[in-house]
């Protein structure tokens, strides 16, 4: 039987060619000269997913009024028609439905660019910015309704199939729906769904038979005042006659990370809510870490949802639907959020940990030796083999994967094992021979990719890589973490889970500050606190002797002592010394120890460099 997710489905009066939706997300793909319009890169980004079989794509959310400017290059509906037209034209050959994302971030926006106040239902400060918004007056409400209608009309006018209205995370409409943020005593407070109904009514009037999608928070994870599945259901029933498609999502301003969480949250977490919220006549979409085609297939076959949102899965593999239709493997999303969660002030362009930016690859049948089968070497070997090279992959250990094998054993990182398994299967299919347990000499000529990884940096304690791989001796553990990514946090969690006494010493104000990027920062603090891990911040280890670590406050110089049988040093590794020569390309941690994303990217790029 062909996979359900590849089957056509009716959405309103249109038909989507598959049941997979590519949801709206921040990309920072804008042209800096036209920061609030959609760029050619936006178009290419969406076109790639349409070409790969996506049934529905939703464009990056555009603000419906200029007073809403939530991030520097946030699209503005009035500046988007040309971009929407280009997206619709690019996706039309594939039959993919194109919905224009329309929204208003309300109190979750930013005053940094407008230099005016934020506008929200009530003067409740957003937990992220702390900024107290101004109360949206009746005239402002009318402007918002008109803005949604005008944006929708413009999108349909230029060829979009419909729109998706934002009442999910970062949404004024959700703020009106929620008792957390709507304390009004006018009609929009006594009936908190009134604004949503007015907006959807106006949009429906504006788009006629076009597709009207609604992204709706159905659980704010704050049951004392927030939206719950039970309170969301009557709202959905009330607007069912207006909308064609609904995407229930999770999370509030208090729990921003809960909407697209990382690997600490099991995929498919909204499945029960989705099933309970199905309304006749409305196509319901399961969102929330749906990254495995097998889960998607099961959900669709069971009837718990009509479509699945697989945004991150299609970042990892733009051809997901086509591959599933063909019975082929899909490059797995590992749910680290390290490269794709880019709603932050530095405006990093969206990327993917496991999917390198594609390079134009020449064909070549030259023999190439790849030394090291970590992520960099695996990606290089696969890419070279796809290009026709005769690849020999040599790995010193008794299995492929490199550091990924160890990292996959840490809490929340299990999906890295899926990535290793995917590479193993791909290489087998491509006929790449893998020589394990072989310490390869780097030959003095011929084409070589050197991907042997980093080496431990001499330090005071047990290097973290060794601690993760081999475990640590009994007794209390202190981890000094000058890096602040997920590694030290995860090791601390694992050790504490084994009943060990653990402290993490960090130079900054927080432990694991790099997790802000992945959305796990606050959750990580909570997990560490619940596990009893001590967080010693703005501190640095100055001594380790006689069962104790001495720590100095980096600001005041004040000393403290922490029991420790083991000191783990989470400092980054360093690159090995490598003699450069023509034909030898060094990649990944062997250049400078960094993350999986760089390893994969450089492994991929090495193929072009060698075959050019």
């Amino acid at each position: 039987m062909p996979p359900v997710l590849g089957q056509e489905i009716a959405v309103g009066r249109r038909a989507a060619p598959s049941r997979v939706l590519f949801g709206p997300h921040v990309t920072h793909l804008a042209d800096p000269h036209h920061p609030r319009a959609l760029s050619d890169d936006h178009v290419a980004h969406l076109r790639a997913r349409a070409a790969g079989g996506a049934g529905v794509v939703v464009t990056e959310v555009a603000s419906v009024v200029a007073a809403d400017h939530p991030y520097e290059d946030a699209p503005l509906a009035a500046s988007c028609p040309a971009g929407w037209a280009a997206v619709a034209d690019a996706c039309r050959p594939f039959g993919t439905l194109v919905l224009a994302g329309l929204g208003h971030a309300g109190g979750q926006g930013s005053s940094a660019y407008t230099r005016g106040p934020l506008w929200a239902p009530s003067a409740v400060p957003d937990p992220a910015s702390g900024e107290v918004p101004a109360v949206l007056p009746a005239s402002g409400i009318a402007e918002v309704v008109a803005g949604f209608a005008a944006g929708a009309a413009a999108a349909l006018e230029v060829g979009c199939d419909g729109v998706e209205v934002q009442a999910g995370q970062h949404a004024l409409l959700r703020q009106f729906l929620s008792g957390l943020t709507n304390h009004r005593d006018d009609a929009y407070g006594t009936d908190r769904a009134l604004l949503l109904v007015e907006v959807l009514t106006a949009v429906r009037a504006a788009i006629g038979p076009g597709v009207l999608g609604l992204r709706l928070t159905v659980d704010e994870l704050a049951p004392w005042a927030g939206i719950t599945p039970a309170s969301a259901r009557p709202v959905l029933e009330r607007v069912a006659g207006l909308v064609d498609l609904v995407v229930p999502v999770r999370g509030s301003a208090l729990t921003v990370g809960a909407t697209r969480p990382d690997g600490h949250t099991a995929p498919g977490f909204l499945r029960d809510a989705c099933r309970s919220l199905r309304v006749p006549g409305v196509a319901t979409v399961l969102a929330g870490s749906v990254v495995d085609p097998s889960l998607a297939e099961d959900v669709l076959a069971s009837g718990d949802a009509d479509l699945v949102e697989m945004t991150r899965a299609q970042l990892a593999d733009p051809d997901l639907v086509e591959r599933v239709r063909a019975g082929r493997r899909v490059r797995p999303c590992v749910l680290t959020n390290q490269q794709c969660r880019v709603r932050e002030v530095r405006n990093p362009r969206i990327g993917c940990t496991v999917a390198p930016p594609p390079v134009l690859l020449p064909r070549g049948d030259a023999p190439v030796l790849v030394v090291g089968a970590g992520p960099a070497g695996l990606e290089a070997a696969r890419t070279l083999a796809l290009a026709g090279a005769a690849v020999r992959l040599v790995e010193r250990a008794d299995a492929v994967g490199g550091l990924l094998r160890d990292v996959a054993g840490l809490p929340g990182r299990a999906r890295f094992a899926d990535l290793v398994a995917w590479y193993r299967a791909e290489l087998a299919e491509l006929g790449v021979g893998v020589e394990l347990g072989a310490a390869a000499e780097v030959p003095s000529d011929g084409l070589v990719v050197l991907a042997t990884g980093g080496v431990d940096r001499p330090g005071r304690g047990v290097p973290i890589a060794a601690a993760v791989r081999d475990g640590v001796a009994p007794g209390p553990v202190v981890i000094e973490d000058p890096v602040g990514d997920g590694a030290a946090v995860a090791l601390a969690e694992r050790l504490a889970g084994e009943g060990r006494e653990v402290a993490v010493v960090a130079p900054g104000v927080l432990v694991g500050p790099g997790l802000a990027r992945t959305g796990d920062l606050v959750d990580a603090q909570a997990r560490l606190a619940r596990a009893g891990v001590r967080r010693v911040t703005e501190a640095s280890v100055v001594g380790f002797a006689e069962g104790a670590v001495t720590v100095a406050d980096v600001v005041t110089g004040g000393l403290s002592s922490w029991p420790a049988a083991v000191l783990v040093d989470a400092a980054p590794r360093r690159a090995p010394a490598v003699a450069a020569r023509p034909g030898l390309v060094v990649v990944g941690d062997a250049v400078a120890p960094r993350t999986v994303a760089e390893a994969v990217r450089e492994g991929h790029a090495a193929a072009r460099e060698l075959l050019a």
Partner: protein
Amino acid sequence: MSVLGEPLRLGPRVVRNRIVFPAHLTNAAVARRPSAQHAAYYGARAAGGVGMVITEEQSVDPADRPYEKLVDGTDPAVVPGYRAIADAVHAHGALVLAQLGHNGGQSSSLYSRAPVDGADDEPDPMFREVPRPLSDAGLARLVDGFGLVAEHVVAGGLDGVEIQCSQASLIRQLFSARSSRALPFLVAVLRAVRSAVGPDGVLGVRVQGDEGFAGGLATSDAVAVAVAVETLVDYVNTAVGVATRTLPLIEPPMGVPAGYAAHVPSAVRAAVSVPVLGVGRFTTPEQAREAVASGSCDLVGVVRGQIADPGFATKALRGGRVRRCIGCNQECIARVGLNQRLGCAVNPAAGRESSVAANGYLAASTRTTSPFARVLVVGGGPAGLAAAVAAARDGHAVTLAERRDVLGGQLAIASRGPERRELANLVADLAHEARDLGVVVRLRTPVEDVHGIDAVVLATGARPALPAWAGGHARVVDVTEVLTGRVAPSGRVLVVDEGRGHAATSTAELLARRGASVATLTPALVVAGDLAPTLDRERWRRRAAEVGIAEYTDRVVLAAHDGLVLDVLHHLTGEVTPWPADWVVHAGPPTPHVPELVTDVPVFRVGDCLAPRGIDAAVREGTAVRERFSRL
């Protein structure tokens, strides 16, 4: 005339006075090129009388990109932007140099998606990425980059180049690591740049005088480098602090006195014969005059003082009251750190000089055709004062009514906190401006009904709002009640911070210094989260440690019981603990105060009575309200 106004020869050129606008980040670049905003921004300071402008850093390597809006000087497309800057500055008779630099390991792969190139493989403390150590060939390539960018600078008509070897710089990293490659590299860079700028161009070098950590570069290192390259340069600039490690040394907040870094230029000046530039929170004309007159430097750098008042130099040389920088760091340092365009809390036009909307802030008058209006400003805080000043400057007849017996509103109250005194300078400066412009100021004047006027500006601010859990308990009070002296908590005081700014920390320190046993408690991950972006956190932590203030994070107060015991929830674990205290002082967002006015003329709300925010919003909205009167 003081030395400050004397011309000075810098190699081939003469600078008209001793006041410099040194290099600092603005985030005004668009697509990594200088923008029209750069030209307007520097041009405004040149029009204000500065002797020399040094642009923000221009990178010599496309892969060097620690922040998004760093100009890539290697791109030939920068030349028209340089030309626009040169024209804007030269039109007013000032010199303009470009600062050239490479950030080395003090950088990120976020934008380049390439390994960071560093002096060695030691990760930078802020960016925390492992650099790829630069080979000798790599350094040689960068020498060429310096030369290429210098050629672009000259092609754009600028007067010369300054080489950044401090703050954030590969050259600093080489010196700091005591690398034998450091001096030869710097010499090669200077020779390449000299060759590009020719005999008519000015060439300066900015040396590092105090990295601010044990084993780091010190004043003697600055002197040694300056002496070693003296014959290759026309002047020496100085700096203290490392941008990614000891940033508060570079851009200190208001608690740090002017001239805190004067020891560096003093020592360098004693050792070299070329002119020496000194910097260090010189924010008033008096301080600038004294820096030069005392002999600690030949040229004085004033960054924040000229952001706050573009006319600083002329006023310093010819007399006149400047609107002073208050060292709050909220709009210049904090915003730039967040990848946003530079602004200024006391000067709403700063960072927006090129935009049409900013003309309302900048122009001497926006009132061109309409007749003057009779304006009543209700409230004498920063928003009301700014509104009164702006309206009076346009020729409107302005009366300002303040309920209390002093001007300044929340700003005056906040200035009572330790190391917050300079906030009161803004109140004083605005009040002087208002009186000079003929604003009628009425204190102790509550406003109920209004007549005989054409418009009302409502700047009534916000009132403290105690949380529901306070439950009317007499010993649960708002921070403002402590700062105004209405109550004097003692014994065990718990300061609950449900805001982000200085209110909680100021009050905690004030009480601790009076002998109370003080703890701060916040639901957030850190107490007073806004103190880090403005570089106030480090000094606060030192002072808090000095007076023994305990800090509790991740905690929410649920209830206050009689005898004063709080129920405190640790929200990460769910644990609830009883918390006894003699007094509880609360800091949190206040509630807008919007009095009912009986009037049939237009009422414009500005500042905290619209939404409680910071100084910048108050001053900006107050200033901008003038545009509304022209449409009356």
